[in-house]
């Protein structure tokens, strides 16, 4: 199907309202295959206003007299209103947008450098290509880092014992004390309490590889109760006796539907400018979003602390191992590993721990907070991760090389992007859709020099230490830059940021010339 078939009308005269802070724009409205364009005519600035159609989350139309109004709610939480002259034109444009926003546009690119780094640090791990054809695990990438002493055959057996074939693989090697962070999905112990010798051997090999006598902790992101119940449906947890040296901890994290609802309620609360102080505070409390931030951060801290302080290896899993598991492993790395806090390192982390690790972006981020369709796979887990990173950045303002701009960009692109990085649910699907050949990678787009000033943290200085955040409620803040992005005047904070940049560049300049 050609996109042009969906375009019912070429152009119309319209006025665009972009919220209380931006002046209205008047001009000619155009619908193209991927964008909505507004050209303001001659009197105003000649700049085109552009909206990617895939970022539209829901669309509402109203007709009155001989004009119509279209309200567009975007995945980046913006609300836009178009007043269009002519009833026919309004309906045509609404239909065109409706048809086009669901169409797919493409663009992509990858890394596999992490193993090289691990190999420099230790000899205990190897790169296995057992999943070359995605037969063992459809949601894992082709190559995985596993203990050197475990052969591919054993991996295959272990994969058979884990939900979706997600056997334990290395997520992060903590070089200072040789401990390892692993992730997997739940073991399929089931009601019969099945065991798998190869899976047990794999985890034993992890401990032996780290240090003789090393201990390990399994952080289960479900409650003990939920994990027990999972046995009824074939899942379950590692039996204590079967995995000597490993100890299990339960830290329940919210996922799926409740997390999505929490997000929706927070966005609703943030959209109401008239509410009283009490109402706002009670809604902020009621949506529980910050509670989820706190839980995610403190679980990641627990994992990080197990490695750094206790010298233990950590295995993280929930049920499928594609959501809260990744949240914990990626945050733990950010806390421990100074390299993952650099611009490149963080992009690699997102690529490795989210995209390649099989977080189903297509299922989780198809819609955002405004959509009336509520598919059951929708969940803002990745957004929760970004929020946690933002909190880390607030508490350690000099330790992250990237700024809020990068996090906002990742949020936008995860939900709607002209690049291919966040397309599909796994490497396998991306291969089938030829994402890499047919689209461009987000990273190449972000790393263009003109973007840098928006994305970088001017005050960054390498901090070789682990960054332990405070998780007290008094220390956590609502991420205003995201949730109130379109409702608060951006100007003062932006000019302040600009001033900070200026001071920093001045200081570089003067130092350079001195």
């Amino acid at each position, binding site marked *: 199907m050609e996109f042009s078939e969906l375009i019912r009308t070429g152009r119309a005269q319209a006025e665009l309202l972009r919220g209380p802070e931006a002046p209205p724009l008047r001009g000619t409205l155009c619908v193209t295959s991927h964008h909505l364009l507004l050209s303001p005519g001659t009197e105003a600035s000649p700049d085109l206003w552009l909206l990617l159609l895939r970022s539209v989350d829901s669309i509402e139309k109203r007709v009155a007299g001989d004009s119509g109004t279209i309200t567009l709610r975007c995945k980046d939480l913006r609300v836009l209103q178009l007043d269009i002259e002519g009833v026919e034109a309004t309906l045509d444009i609404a239909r065109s947008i409706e048809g086009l926003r669901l169409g797919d546009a493409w663009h992509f690119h990858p890394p596999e450098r992490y193993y090289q780094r691990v190999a420099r640090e230790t000899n205990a791990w190897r790169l296995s290509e057992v999943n070359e054809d995605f037969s063992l695990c459809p949601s894992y990438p082709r190559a995985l880092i596993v203990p050197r002493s475990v052969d591919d055959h054993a991996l295959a057996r272990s994969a058979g014992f884990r939900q979706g074939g997600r056997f334990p693989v290395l997520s992060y090697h903590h070089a200072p004390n040789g401990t390892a962070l692993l992730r997997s999905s739940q073991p399929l112990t089931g009601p019969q309490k099945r065991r798998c010798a190869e899976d047990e051997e794999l985890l034993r090999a992890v401990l032996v590889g780290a240090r003789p006598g090393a201990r390990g902790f399994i952080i289960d992101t479900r409650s003990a109760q939920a994990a027990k119940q999972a046995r009824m449906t074939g899942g379950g947890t590692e039996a204590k006796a079967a995995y000597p040296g490993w100890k299990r901890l339960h830290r329940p994290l919210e996922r799926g539907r409740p997390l999505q609802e929490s997000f929706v309620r927070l966005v609703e609360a943030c959209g109401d400018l008239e509410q009283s102080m009490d109402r706002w505070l009670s809604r902020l409390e009621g949506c529980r979003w910050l509670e989820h931030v706190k839980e995610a951060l*403190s679980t990641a801290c627990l994992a990080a*602390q197990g490695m750094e302080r206790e010298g233990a290896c950590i295995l993280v899993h929930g049920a499928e191992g594609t959501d809260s598991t990744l949240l914990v492993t990626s945050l733990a790395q950010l806390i421990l590993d100074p390299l993952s806090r650099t611009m490149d390192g963080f992009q690699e982390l997102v690529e490795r721990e989210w995209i390649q690790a099989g977080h189903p972006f297509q299922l989780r981020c198809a819609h955002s907070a405004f959509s009336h369709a509520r598919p059951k796979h929708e969940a803002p887990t990745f957004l929760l991760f970004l929020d946690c990173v933002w909190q880390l950045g607030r508490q350690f303002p000099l330790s992250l090389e990237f700024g809020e701009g990068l996090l906002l960009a990742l949020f936008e692109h995860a939900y709607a992007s002209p690049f291919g990085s966040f397309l599909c649910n796994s490497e396998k699907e991306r291969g089938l859709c030829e994402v890499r050949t047919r689209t461009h990678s987000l990273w190449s787009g972000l790393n263009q020099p003109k973007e840098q000033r928006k994305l970088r943290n001017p005050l960054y200085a390498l901090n070789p230490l682990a960054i332990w955040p405070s998780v007290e409620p008094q220390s956590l803040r609502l991420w205003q830059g995201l949730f109130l992005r379109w409702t608060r005047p951006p100007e003062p904070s932006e000019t*302040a940021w600009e001033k900070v940049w200026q001071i920093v560049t001045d200081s570089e300049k003067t*130092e350079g010339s001195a």
Partner: protein
Amino acid sequence: MEHIRTTKVEQVKLLDRFSTNNKSLTGTLYLTATHLLFIDSHQKETWILHHHIASVEKLALTTSGCPLVIQCKNFRIVHFIVPRERDCHDIYNSLLQLSKQAKYEDLYAFSYNPKQNDSERLQGWQLIDLAEEYKRMGVPNSNWQLSDANREYKICETYPRELYVPRIASKPIIVGSSKFRSKGRFPVLSYYHQDKEAAICRCSQPLSGFSARCLEDEHLLQAISKANPVNRYMYVMDTRPKHRMQSWWDTQKDIGRIIVRISSKIWSDERITESDEKKRLNAMANRAAGKGYENEDNYSNIRFQFVGIENIHVMRSSLQKLLEVNGTKGLSVNDFYSGLESSGWLRHIKAVMDAAIFLAKAIMVENASVLVHCSDGWDRTSQVCSLGSLLLDSYYRTVKGFMVLIEKDWIAFGHKFSERCGHLDGDPKEVSPVFTQFLECVWHLTEQFPQAFEFNEAFLLQIHEHIHSCQFGNFLGNCQKEREELKLKEKTYSLWPFLLDDLKKYLNPIYNSQSQRFTVLEPSTVSFNFKFWRNMYHQFDRTLHPRQSVFNIIMNMNEQNKQLEKDIKELESKIKQCKNKQTDDILTKELLHSIHPESPTLKSSLCFKEQTLLPVNDALRTIEGSNPTDNRYSDYAEEFSKAEPAVVSLEYGVARMTC
């Protein structure tokens, strides 16, 4: 010193306030005449000024010793465990005595000696000159003049000597009006807006009762509105919530009616003539009614506006609730926000802000003069007048201007600092965080307009520290008259020069004084712009704060930039000199040679490498790097090392784990 029995106790434990597993530091506790000092095993010192102590509490004896909890007015809370009960009891008693002084003369300010001579001290006091400030505003002028009515504090004891009133308001009118206003606080000028020729005036509530009126007061208000040549009508802002006023008004009326009914019975018995009866009834009823707000019918060209700021008692208990919630160990996010909501604290802050914005808008948009009052006109009125002027006039957003603002609208106009801050052992019901709220409103403005203020958060925190410290004379006493009687200017020092000495610590590195956008601030009062001020209410809870300070870094960079730029200029001029000479190569070489080893550039770039940080402000308590044991999740982690229990539910049900 007679209160101190024990001066030193060893092996005292200082508990971590937020730790759920009773983590502690062991050290020695010293009691001096002015401070309580704890030195832990890492030689880190914790100083607590006796005047900062709000309450001392001795808890039930435990196996490890006798717990002593000290709450401070600057929101520090320390929890000691003293090994021997006797020592604990001694310290407890001494602190009770030392923290509550009965006489002004026993306060720290009267013994504090920063080694300055009398003329330096006097200079310090002369730093802020209010007459100069009124001149800056543009008064006296053709419409406003200095009144000598209160020169001897005859009309109003709680006002300053110098008061500015409309030129057409004669002394009898002023005297008459003052009799009609509570505590004699008649309408006077607080701020004059030169461009708009509009004024902010302040007073206390009228004693209007049922129908009583005061012609002089009505005249004075007329005079204020006439002093504004642009706009004839003026606003009267009653900062109290209307519903409260009305219910109060109703009860007063009821009481009045009851009295009328009872007395008419008595009088009918006594058979008093009708006209007499009416007179007496009226008088009785008026007395019963007492105070109220202006009767709109009697004042023309006036628009009345109620803005709902609650009274000092509501504010006190609101803060109390807030502190209770925040002091909870293992506080969950939900409990924090529901506690924040039920304390009402941010609602009250928003109310003050809303009032100030109304005031600023009335002047900027409608060009109208505004008269602000509450009950006595020294709490809510001070908040609204000072905050309103701050929005209107960028001068008050500079370091010096902010000092002037506090001196004018708070100190001179008789905000009862000593009673509100509990400087002396007095009525606890008079204590209220009115000034703290003002500082918090200013902080919210600095958050919304990060470039509009010359000073930073540390400045606000430091001022807050000193309204309670009693170390300087500025905030002692309840009004100017009392301060003069205490001879504060001869016996104590002024705070402001000491703040200026440390100016670097208090400057905002991204302040933009030129920007036109910041002449009048128009803050947004949408609810989500109001946040909990962690750096105030958890000043001393190090673990809750960001671990790195952007502020210091930027400040340093700014400093270094300036220094380097200066160096570059110097060098350039030197090079020019050399070039000009051009006499012979050797000389140039020698010169360059001589510059090189001690070149200021090199020195300062070396400084840069070494990261010579400015003195980190104590009040901000930021630290670089951090430690996992500082944070509460470490408490779960200690479960790592425990033997293997079957199912353990951890403290406060925050986490559960199974093995």
